[in-house]
């Protein structure tokens, strides 16, 4: 049981992931862009973050850099439609711990979260 921050501009995706995570026993908080992700991270102090990249206002890579600068222990998993090597490397360099490319298998996401929680 953990608190997970789900960041994605698509409400559809947040609902789908929230269903999946709550039925696995987790609590979910949400944000729909990078700016809100940073404020939710600060106020909610989630155990793990699932972070989209392509979003309005502020993209997920920028948000990861800001969150990891403030909290080097942040546990962030990228969950995005983008998956080019250059972007994966950028995310990992910025502090992301894992990178999942959409379309995703639910078990892959749950497995990545459990790995970070242990």
């Amino acid at each position, binding site marked *: 049981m953990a608190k997970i921050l789900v960041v994605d*501009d*698509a*409400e*559809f*995706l947040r*609902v*789908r992931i929230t269903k999946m995570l709550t039925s696995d026993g987790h609590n979910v908080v949400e944000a729909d862009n990078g700016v809100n992700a940073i404020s939710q991270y600060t106020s909610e102090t989630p155990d793990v973050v699932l972070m989209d990249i*392509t*979003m*309005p206002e502020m993209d997920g890579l920028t948000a990861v850099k800001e969150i990891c600068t403030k909290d080097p222990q942040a546990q962030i998993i990228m969950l*995005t*439609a*983008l*998956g*080019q*090597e*250059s972007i994966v490397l950028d995310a990992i360099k910025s502090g992301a711990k894992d990178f999942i*490319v*959409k*379309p995703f298998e639910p078990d892959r996401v749950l497995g990545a979260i459990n790995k970070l929680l242990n």
Partner: protein
Amino acid sequence: MNITILNPFLAAAKEVVQAEVQLEVTRGDLALQRSAFTSQDLTVLISLAGDIEGVVLYGLTTQTALALVSRMLDQEFKEMDAMAQSGISELANVITGRSTVNLSEAGFTCDISPPTLVQGQSIEISTVEFQRVVVPLETEVGIITAHLALREAQASADNMPYIPIQVETASPNGA
């Protein structure tokens, strides 16, 4: 636009639709168009910037969109509410994102914009300067018509991203 752009896009569409809605995609006959694009019930626009630049438009009927999102969330949608709109936009986002992964394997690095959903028929969207490739993606629940107005980036004096679209603001629904 050439085949180095088309094939990565087609492969992505097939793979993503199969994974998200468990439906086979068959490619219909390709067409080249230069005239203004007239929207269908729903049109999702996503722009690309980088080594490949331009815009991809995905057009579909409400009926097809509802069938697709119902399968994506495993729950029946009867109207295009905010959740259904978000689902169709996300499907377009994932297809386009996957295309950029495939394009990067062919040596092209590019970034995509968040999706914009335009609702309502007969809205004119003109893709200026060059023709676009029209790719019907046929599924059991209807056709997603993809319009690829893309080109390899050319050195431009002002370094501005190239977004070759103009959307006529007067929509029949006043939206």
